[in-house]
Every structure is written in C-alpha cells, then in structure tokens.
C-alpha cells in the first residue's frame, strides 16, 4: 500500500458516503456504519504505525502531488513520530466517542445522520491537519475544520450553544486570519529566495531576518495560542466545553486543541528558530500563568464540564511550558503530554457526560454519593481524575514530570511555580471527587443506573492506555525522543549541562 496517509483520510469520508445511502430513520444502522468506518480508519492507522520506522527522524510515508501550481502549493503529507502519535490518538478516540455517546446525537437539531456525517468529516480533517507537510494545506484544514465543530456545538449542544459556537468560531478564525498573513509572508520570502514553496522542510531552510521572523512567528503563535488555548486567549473554551456534547468536547479538547501545541512545535519552532528564542521567556511566563490560572479557576467551578475545561487550560500551560523550555526532556515530555491529556480528557469528559446524562444536571452540587449508587462509573471517573492530577503510575505523571525536569534546567523559577500547579491539581480533582462521589447520596441520585456493557467497552481501552503507558512508556517515548532531537537540531539548541550536585 503506497498512499497510506491519503487512504487514512479518505476512509472516514467513505463512511460519510455510506451514510448518505443509509435511511434517515434507521438510527441504529447509521451508528453502526459510522462505527465501522471509524474502526476501519483505526486499523489503517495501525498499519501506518507498523510501516513507520521509529529509528528515523524526518517525515515518512510521504506523498506529494501538485495542487495549485500557480502558488507552488502541493497536496503533501507525511508523518514523524509526533504527528503519527496524534493521528493514532485521533483514530483511537473517534470510535470510543461514538461508542460512549451512543445517544448523543438524538437530542440535536438535525438528527442522527448529520451528527455522524459531521463527526466523520471532522475525523478526516483531524488526520489531515496532522499529516500535512505543506503549510498551505495545513492552513486550509486548520480553518475548514472549524466549520463541522461549529455545527456540532451549535446543533447538538446544551444551553447557550449557539452563542458558544459563534464565540469559538470567531476566536479561532481571528487567529487563523493572523496566521494567514504570516503564511503569505513566509511564502513571499520563499519566492524571493528559492522560487516559492510551501513545503515545511524547505521553508525551515530559509534565512529570515530577525524582525521579520518575530512578526511571522507572532502570526503563527497567536493562532496556536488561541487554539491551544493559552491564557489570555482562552476565554472561548469554557463556554464551548460547557455547551458541547461530551463526545464533541472530547474531540475538541482532546485532539483539536492539540493542533495548537502541535503547530507550535511544527511551525513556530521549526520555521522561526530565532524568534522562538526571543519570545520563549515571555511564552514561558504565559504558560505558567495558564497553569496557575486554570487550576485556581477550576477549583471554583460549579459546573463539571467547565471544571474540566479549566483543568485543560492548566494542562495546556504545562504543554506549552515544555515546548518553549527548548530542552529535549521538555519537548518530548510535552509531546507525550499531548497524548496523555487527550486520553485523560476523554476519560473525564466521557464519564462526566454519563453522569450528567443520568442525573440531568451538570452542577457539582447536585451530585453526591455516586460511589454507592453507581460504583463502576464512579471508579472510572475517579481514575480519570487521578490521571488529570498526574498520579504516579498513570501515564500523565511521566509526561508532567518530564516537562518539569525539562523546564527546570533552563527556567527554574517557572518550573517551581508550575510545580504548585500539581498541588492545585490535587485540590481541584480531589474536591470534585469528594463532592460528587462520596458523602450522602443526594436526593435525585438514588435511581441512577451503572454503566452498561457498551459503556464499559468504551471506557476500558482509555483506562488501559493510561495504566499501560504509566508503567511502560518506552514504545511511545522513544520515537518521540527521536523526533524531538531532530526538532532541536533544526532550531540549533542543545540541552544545558546539568552539573551533578555533591
């Protein structure tokens, strides 16, 4: 098989095609079709993993075809370890989301079919955005991806969903437009220097003077910081997370927002090494603020979904901290963090989603004593929470630890402040666990049903991944390290020498 990555992107679209011929009323068949399509995609992504040579850096499984000749734009895809792990994260999470949110599509505005069509289109784009090695292609998918999410939030969400969807879209598009200016800028530079290209590897070889670099860097960075989201660009997130369905939130925070942090590594660092070094201290400061701000606000949240959203702001702070520490532990920790955050956010949103659906309220104060009524569900939520606070033994611990080591080497003060984020994380997780799972069974909770088989099947792999990588992270960390070293090589930074203490 030659065009693995293209086929990978097409498979969900074939699902869409199949859905087009499925009768609108037969919602069961629609769901089955969607799940089959997403499982096929998963299998194909595993084939890609199998074909991938983990010992090599640089892009593999590459394909390149001319697309818009007039501007040297190509349909060019390829993966390194960082993008491949994110693609696999996508293909793993989508079927889980489908399975977990079996009834999610039913309360919506347009019925089941549209929901799964949008979801599958979104999957195609999520794969495409990570696979793209042409900056223009990346940009196109980066922007176009927002439209299905917009309709997923606005059409199937809860509460102030239309306003939340609009806010999400406007923020993201605004960032995207700044990025467009920067994309054009770097293209024009490449026209003047090499005749014009959008290929990310070629672009990273350009010589760009420092002040231009700074502007272009900011164009890219602000777009990614909105996406990620980093304080102070985060204000769209809580609303969107609160209004979206559990499945949409999972994909939104678990994968889509990773495009932001992924973009920082792939584009900000690789294309503008000079500007990266200039801005790194400032961005580190923003990251630390994000960590603390997200954690402190999470403690005060009354709504369980906005709580998860704020914890994510804190976690994205960690990821950004790791990236801009510009050390090998920092960056590889950050890339591993992206995966772990995806998985643990999925666990949190899905279990919280089940709780909310059963209880009919997302207010934490309405919950209480769930451990006695729905033990399995409560345990799942508990483990998800532990993963969010990075308990040793779960995979998120490793990544958080790596990020802190990596940043301590260069920015000890920032790392120390960030460490308090861990304490706060313990606080916000344990508080919500205490309030919702323990204590007296609050009235209204007595009749709740525990997880059924379908839901157990959906959550089992998520928890398994958290535990397995917690004890045995090497299969994923090693290739990430290889990719990280090549990124650092590109920027021209090395790890600081750490003097052994006496």
């Amino acid at each position: 098989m030659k065009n693995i990555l293209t086929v990978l992107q097409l498979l969900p679209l074939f699902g869409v095609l199949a859905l087009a011929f499925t009768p609108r009323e037969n919602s069961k068949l629609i769901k089955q079709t969607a799940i089959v399509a997403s499982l096929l995609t998963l299998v194909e992504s595993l084939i890609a993993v199998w074909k991938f040579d983990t010992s090599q850096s640089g892009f593999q499984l590459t394909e390149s075809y001319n697309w818009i000749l007039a501007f040297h734009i190509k349909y060019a895809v390829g993966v390194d370890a960082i993008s491949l792990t994110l693609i696999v994260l996508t293909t793993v999470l989508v079927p889980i989301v489908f399975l977990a949110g079996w009834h999610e599509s039913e309360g919506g505005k347009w019925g089941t079919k549209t929901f799964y069509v949008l979801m599958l289109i979104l999957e195609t784009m999520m794969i495409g955005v990570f696979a793209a090695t042409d900056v223009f292609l990346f940009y196109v998918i980066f922007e176009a991806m927002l439209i299905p999410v917009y309709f997923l939030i606005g059409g199937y969400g809860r509460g102030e969903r239309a306003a939340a969807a609009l806010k999400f879209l406007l923020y993201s598009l605004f960032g995207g437009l700044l990025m467009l200016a920067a994309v054009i800028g770097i293209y024009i530079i490449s026209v003047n220097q090499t005749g014009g290209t959008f290929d990310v590897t070629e672009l990273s070889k350009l010589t760009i003077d420092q002040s231009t670099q700074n502007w272009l860097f900011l164009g890219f960075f602000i777009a990614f910081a909105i996406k990620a989201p980093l304080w102070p660009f985060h204000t769209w997130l809580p609303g969107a997370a609160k209004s979206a369905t559990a499945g949409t939130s999972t994909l939104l925070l678990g994968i889509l927002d990773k495009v932001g942090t992924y973009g920082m590594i792939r584009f900000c660092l690789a294309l503008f090494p000079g500007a990266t070094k200039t801005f790194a201290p400032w961005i580190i400061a923003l990251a630390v603020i994000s960590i603390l701000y997200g954690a402190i606000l999470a403690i005060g949240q009354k709504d369980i979904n906005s709580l998860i959203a704020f914890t994510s702001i804190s976690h994205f702070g960690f990821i950004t901290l790791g990236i801009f520490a510009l050390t090998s532990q920092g960056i590889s920790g950050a890339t591993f963090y992206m995966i772990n955050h995806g998985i643990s956010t999925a666990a949190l949103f899905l279990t919280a989603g089940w709780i909310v659906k059963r209880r009919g309220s997302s207010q934490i104060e309405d919950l209480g004593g769930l451990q006695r009524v729905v033990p399995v569900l409560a345990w799942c939520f508990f483990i998800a929470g532990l993963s969010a606070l990075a308990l040793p033994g779960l995979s998120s611990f490793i990544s958080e630890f790596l990020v802190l080591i990596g940043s301590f080497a260069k920015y000890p003060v920032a790392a120390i402040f960030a460490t308090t984020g861990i304490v706060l994380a313990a606080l916000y997780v344990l508080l919500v666990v205490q309030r919702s799972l323990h204590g007296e069974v609050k009235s209204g909770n007595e009749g709740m049903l525990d997880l059924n088989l379908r839901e157990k099947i959906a959550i089992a792999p998520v928890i398994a991944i958290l535990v397995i990588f917690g004890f045995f992270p090497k299969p994923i960390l090693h290739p990430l390290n290889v990719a990280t070293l090549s990124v650092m090589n590109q920027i021209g930074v090395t790890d600081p020498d750490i003097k052994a203490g006496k």
Partner: protein
Amino acid sequence: MLTAPHLNYALLAPILIVLGGALLGVLVEAFVGKAYRSRLQVSIALLAVVAAFVQLIRVRTQTSNTAAVNSVSMDGAGIYIQLIILALSFVGLLLIADTDNFTAQASSIPGSTEEASAIAAGRQQTEVFPLTLFAIAGMLLFPVATDFITLFVALEVLSLPLYLMAGLSRRRRLLSQEAALKYFLLGAFSSAFFLFGAAFLYGYSGSLSLSGIADGIHSSGANSVFLLIGLIFVSVGLLFKVGAVPFHSWTPDVYQGAPTPITGFMATCTKAAAFGAMLRIFYVGFNDAQWSWRIIFSTIAVITMVFGAIAAIVQRDVKRTLAFSSITHAGFIMISVIALSHDGLSAALFYFISYGFATLGAFAIITLVRDSSGEITDLNRWSGLGKRSPLVAGAFSLFLLSFGGIPLTAGFIGKFTVFTSSYNAGNINLVVFGVLTSAVALFFYLKIILTLFFGEVNNDTLTVVIPSILTRIAIAICVAVTIVLGVYPSIILNSAQTFATFIR
C-alpha cells in the same frame, strides 16, 4: 478625401453581437404579442451572451490596440474581463428571466388602477432584457476602451440602462423608484466628475488616450497639478461605480430598492467592468505616476474595507447587509489594483469570478424567500430557515462562507491571491488591514448563518418558493463554481495568470 476607419470586426464582434441582440429585443418588445414575448426575449438575450462568449473564446489569443482605430485595446486582460462579464451576465440573465420580480408596466403610477389592470390582464412588459443587453454591451466596452471619450461613452452606455432597471421592481415600487432616482442623480454627478477629470488630463498631456497620458507623465514636462486634478476626478467617477468609500452612499439604498436580480447583476457585472476599466487606466495610463495616487488609493482601500465591514454588522436587512459586504469586497479588490503588478492583475481577475458567482447566488436565494407581499429581506424573519428548507439555507451559508474567505471555498483563494500579490508588492500594511477586516466581516456573515440554523423558527407566513428551472440552474452554477474553485482553483488561476497582461 475621407477614408472609412479601419475596424477589426472579429475582435469587436462580441460587443456588436450583444448590441445587436439589444436592438432586436427592442423590436421584439414593440411587435411581438405578449404570448411569446417573454420567452423570446429571454432566448435572444441568453443567445446573444452565449454567442458573444463563443466569439471571444475564438479570438482569445489575438491582441490589438487598434481594434477600433486607437480607441479600443483588445488584450489578454481585456478579453478575460469580457469573458467574466459575459459569464456573470449569463447567470444574471437566468435570474432576470423570472419576470415576476419586475413591474408589469413601469410607466404606470405605483398603486394606480392602471397598474392593477396591467397586472390583472397579465400585460407584462419585458423591456428589462434589451436594457440588460445594452448595459452588458457598455460593460464589455468599458474595460477595453483606451481613450477617455470611449471610456465615457461606455460608462454612460452601461449606466443609463442600470438607472432604469433599478426602478423596475414589482413590489415596493416607491422604494425602487427612489433607489433609481438616487442612483441616477449620484451617477450623473460622478459621470460629470469623470468627464471633468478627463478634460484636465487632456490639458495636462494634450492627449485623451491612456498611452498618450502615460507618455505625458513619462516626459514629465507638464504641470503635474493638472495631472493630479484630472487623476482625482477620474478616480471619483470610477470609485463611485465600484462603490468605494466615500462614494458608496448610494450602494445600500440602491441594492435594497432595486429588483433583486438586478441588484445581483449590478453588484457583480458593474463592479467587474468598472474595476476592469480602473485596472487598465491605472496600469496603462498612470503607472508612472504612482507617487501621486498610491497613497490615496491605499487609504481609500482601507477605509472602504473597514467601513463596509463595520457598517454591515448593524444591518438587519439582508440586501443592505450584502450591499455593505460588497463595499468591503470592493476594498479587497482595490488592494490588488494598488499592487500594480502582474500578480495583482490576475488576483483581481480571479476575485471577480469568486466574488461574482457567490454574489449572484446569494441574491438568487433572496428572491426565493417570500411572503404574500413579496421578498422578505428582514433578517429576523429568516430565523430558522435552515429548519424549513435546509438546501436553500445551506447554499446561502456556502456563499456567505465564501464571502468570509473560509478555506475550501472560492472566496478564500480569492483573498489569498489578493493578499499574496499585495504582500509581494510590498504593501504589507494593506494585508494586515485586509486580514483584520476579514475578521470583522466574518462576524456578520457568521451571525447570519447562526440565525439561519440556530435561530428559533418564526411562526409566520414566510415561504420558500420553489425556484423556476432557470433560477435553479443559476444557483447550481454559483454553488458549483464556489466549491470547485475552492478545492481546485488551478482551472481559473492558470488561465488568469496567462491572460493577465495589458498592452499599451
């Protein structure tokens, strides 16, 4: 002894064919009975446009700056703009063919018994078709004319029918007539400005032709105050036609009052023609006088973009919103005029197409949303349209997304080409303003989509009429162009780059 001037008929044929069609239409209007008249008129108009298009394709590789003595230059860019105008006119005519939008008898007083009896008897006049053809002929001539006399004649030939057509609306006739009068008065003023400027340019260079003026600038012996005055007044005339701020004030009123198919026709074809002429005048005539106009035009472009986008936010009438949006887009196209390069020219050509078809499509959709008293243009009443007819709302949203420049629509590629050309020409400030304005503009496009899909369904008398077959074809063409050019723009981009040359 006088010799007859030499005319290159093959190159002039497209304009002549359309003019011939118009004259034939006048005769048909006078002599053919009402049973066949409407159908015959539509056929003549469409055939004339298609024939002109075919003839243009046949002569597309020829260039001549002596097609009509020294007054008309047929060159790559000119032919391409003519092709665009004809293609847009074709779709526009498909919409105009739905005569239900036009008053039965324009000469009758609104609300009079005469009007009522004309409607009751089904005496539908169809003068709109020959008028449209006359306007198209003027539009074809405008961007290829190379001296100011011909330019002025073309400007008038394209404008006068439009003034009339703006007043032909069947419903809300007073509003329509007010729009027509306003358009006429302001248009007449701007034409006068144009002519006045041409006179000054003659005074400056001793020539009315663009190349003569360019030579005058080149030798730079003459008094450049005359040049400045002439340039500014000519620009006023052109900027009025494209609806740039501060000469835009007619746009919302006329767009709102005119029959919707006419609005679509005006918003696209007139703009393409006027920008075509502007491109030629500035690329050929004033290229060497950049110092004098570049900064003014940059300012106007910025104001136009920003003002259009901000004013559109507060509109509650869908036609007015699109009017302000068209002002913003005029600003975007101006960016490519200012780039003054081959890239800029081809970007403008692409933008005409991407913007033109989306605009026609959007206005076509507006003609479908009605209640018993005619079109509903109040956006509040469009609320929940997505529920009632998802296809119509979906198509409208697609056009809005294209206006907003969301990737995978033609509008995005249009913006990308314009910004790239401008960046390449060193006008980075304009790119930044363009990008920021796009963000503002997106706000109101998205708000409309929000109303369509997430708004409460109004329990009122709104209906979406089943479109006639011609309207359906028109909308289908617009949707197809918007998507295809968004996904695979090379089809047009390559040819636009090949054709984007002006000869002197």
